[in-house]
């Protein structure tokens, strides 16, 4: 590889990757090692820790989508709605038609993305609070749709007792063995793989030309369009990718919980997906992961407070916004920058 090849990459790399002490690849590797080796080694037998980690991984996977819609300057509260769509696609295909979960997983994302594209095309013309509100309506509409059409969704009864993911084989070669009842590690590794893939793709997207276009949409749509950029197309692409993430995440949870109800994903979930992005820091690809990690782990740690758990948790959240209004990572970045300045001087 000649040096010229690397120039364009650095041209669009996120500003912080240069300032951060860890290069993105190293950071990714670190996260992967911590997840795939560190957690099982330390907590392999502890179903609770594995479950929290698994949930955290996929919740941050879904939040990446919200992060991407933030990148184009839209506040997206529809994510729970599309996760619900993903859950139902998998649940219906698996329970009615016996389709393999491994096929359903990407398919759920695809269906969510297509529906997202159809809804997104007109809706994405809205900005600011109007977009936030309309996406909140979409989440509610998804729940009510699931309730109102029992012929397809079994309505209020939910779809229960979904089988665990079966074997995935290609030409007789077993790639993934069937999940066994009660085994937590398969779901844990699946969640980790999704997280890593999701993070990797987000990073690729963000550091590519497309990522730069997305950021330009947030900063000034008029200027972007004056340069011949088809902003409507890029907006829909960003939204569809976001919905894809939601759909895949929803499908995962349907399999993990072995059921889906209209209440499986609600407005409050949409809110939390958004919160994770903020708490981590909107400028950073890894922000949703950091946000979800900090928030979910602190909620669990506050359990000892019993009935004061939620009030202290939300109090801490407010404090967190007060002290770090631009997210945890922005504080770390500023500190790293100061340290660098000091060492340079």
């Amino acid at each position, binding site marked *: 590889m000649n040096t*010229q*090849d690397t*120039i*364009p*990459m650095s*041209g*669009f790399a996120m*500003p912080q990757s240069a300032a951060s002490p860890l290069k993105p690849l190293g950071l990714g590797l670190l996260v992967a090692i911590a997840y795939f080796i560190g957690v099982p080694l330390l907590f392999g037998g502890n179903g609770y820790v594995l479950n929290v980690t698994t949930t955290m991984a996929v919740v941050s996977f879904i939040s990446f989508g919200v992060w991407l819609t933030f990148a184009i300057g839209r506040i997206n509260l529809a994510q729970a709605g599309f996760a619900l769509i993903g859950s139902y696609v998998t649940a219906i295909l698996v329970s009615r038609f016996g389709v393999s979960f491994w096929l359903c997983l990407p398919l759920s994302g695809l269906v969510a993305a297509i529906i997202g594209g159809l809804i997104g095309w007109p809706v994405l013309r809205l900005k600011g609070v109007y977009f936030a509100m309309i996406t909140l309506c979409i989440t509610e509409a998804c729940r009510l749709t699931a309730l109102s059409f029992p012929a397809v969704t079994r309505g209020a009864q939910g779809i229960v007792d979904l089988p665990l993911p079966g074997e995935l084989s290609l030409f007789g070669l077993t790639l993934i063995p069937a999940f066994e009842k009660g085994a937590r590690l398969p779901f844990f590794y699946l969640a980790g793989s999704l997280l890593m893939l999701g993070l990797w*793709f987000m990073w*690729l*997207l963000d550091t*590519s*030309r*497309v990522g*730069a*276009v997305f*950021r*330009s949409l947030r*900063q*000034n749509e*008029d*200027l*972007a*369009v*004056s*340069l*011949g*950029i*088809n*902003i409507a197309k890029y907006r829909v*692409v960003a939204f569809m990718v976001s919905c894809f993430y939601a759909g895949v995440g929803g499908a995962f949870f349907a399999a993990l919980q072995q059921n889906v109800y209209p209440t499986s994903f609600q407005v409050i979930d949409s809110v939390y997906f958004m919160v994770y992005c903020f708490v981590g820091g909107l400028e950073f690809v890894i922000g949703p992961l950091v946000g979800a990690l900090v928030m979910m782990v602190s909620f669990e740690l506050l359990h000892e407070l019993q009935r004061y758990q939620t009030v202290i948790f939300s109090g801490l959240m407010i404090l967190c916004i007060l002290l770090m209004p631009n997210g945890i990572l922005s504080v770390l970045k500023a500190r790293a920058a100061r340290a660098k300045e000091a060492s340079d001087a």
Partner: protein
Amino acid sequence: MLEVSGLTKVFGGLTAVKDLTFTLQRGEILSIIGPNGAGKSTCFKLISSFMVPTSGTVRFNGQDITGIGPHAVARKGIVRTFQENTAFQDMTVREAVLLGYQKDCKASLAGMILRSPQARRDDREAGAHADRVLDLLGMSSHAGTLAAGLPHGLLRNLGIAVALAARPQLILLDEPFAGLNSDETKRGVELIRKIRDEGITPILVEHDMAAVMSVSERIVVVNFGSKIAEGTPAEIQRNDKVIEAYLGSEDEEIGL
């Protein structure tokens, strides 16, 4: 190159642009002037398709481009700049200029994300082009500066640089000299000539009469949305209608 005929825009009951007709030859420097609120900026928005005219047509290189949408117009080769300091605030100068090249990238969406060979070629070309543009505007030393940290004059240049990066045939400059001091204006005038020499035809909407008179080869004067005069700077300075139109406003503006 550009033919505007019978262009009219009505907002509610108000006619902002009325039956405006003019043509532009490749390589000439044309300015549109007029008192405040005369409809100059609306005219730009109509040409660049940020607004759809009530009636009339805009033809570019013989093609009808009326109301085809701003990004489509840009792809045909007409790029506009903005009044004030419109920029991508959180991007560095070089990032913004690289983005200007976007419409000429040949790689597919997936290719761009996954870094296909075509995307890499695009990026290399974009990089080379960006360097040329920055060099042309004398901004190479600011390539790594965030737009939000640029001084006023350079921010204006950045706007032009981004537009140039989109490789237009025709560039619409919306008040390129507003808020600049006389030194900066002088450099701006030179810059516009340089742009023209690169083979890009500029049109200006401007208030700064001295600058307009020195840079323009032809001037169109509008008032209350209609064209009241057209000619060389010398002709315009002598035109009674123009003087009358400007009497209501500040005299010094016409630079007599």
